[in-house]
């Protein structure tokens, strides 16, 4: 997996989990479901955005480094 594809894989993984959760959440609607979402799923989006930004930065740092020494 290359630097460029990692961001896509991460984004797809997050989307896929969200879709699965929405499907599950249509039949599971109690306090436990809310608690589950709060505890395990709500932090995913901000962390994924931060990870994607970090991937972008690392990718440009790699490109810059390659250019610098050629």
């Amino acid at each position, binding site marked *: 997996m290359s*630097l460029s594809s990692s961001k896509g*894989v991460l984004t797809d993984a997050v989307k896929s989990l969200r879709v*699965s959760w929405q499907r599950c959440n*249509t*039949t599971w609607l*109690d306090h436990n479901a809310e608690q589950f979402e709060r*505890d395990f799923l709500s932090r995913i989006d901000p962390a994924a955005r931060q990870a994607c930004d970090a991937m972008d930065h*690392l990718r440009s740092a790699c490109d810059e480094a390659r250019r610098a020494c050629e």
Partner: protein
Amino acid sequence: MSSPARVSDIQALSAFRPSLIRFSEDVQRTLTSPGSDAGRVISWMQRERLPYWKREIRVRSEEAVRANTKLVQQTSSESPRPSVDARKDYELAKRRVREAEEKYEKTRQSILKLEKAVKRYRGAVQPMASIARSDMSEAVARLDGYIAALDAYISAGQSHASAKPKDQPEEHEESGKGNIE
């Protein structure tokens, strides 16, 4: 205080379980990969580019020495004015040495910069890595707990129903509904 469970399909909870596991695996793999890629770039720079520019400094310095020798020879010969070509050759050779030295230094600094970038990357993806590794394991365990509790509740309801006379109505309308906490 516990609240009633509202689950119309326990299968949906079971079906969600593999999604959590897949997410955990995909994310852990994808977060490791950029760091490894950058590590390969660093390694390539250390093993190939840095020695290449070091070698170029030596080769180009030798060329500059030769160009200078030619220039000096022309100056000290019968004609005290060296040829324009010899002067140009020497200037060019000196420029090429400087270029190689700059490239060497730039490569060296780029390695340090990229090493720092990898460290920053690892710090920035730490929250996501922690979610993928720890939170998802915990999520699967908790989900398993809910599924087990709902299964137990339904089984208890079925045993209770089979123990009752046939004309007596069920206590709960829907399986999986009720208080499981």
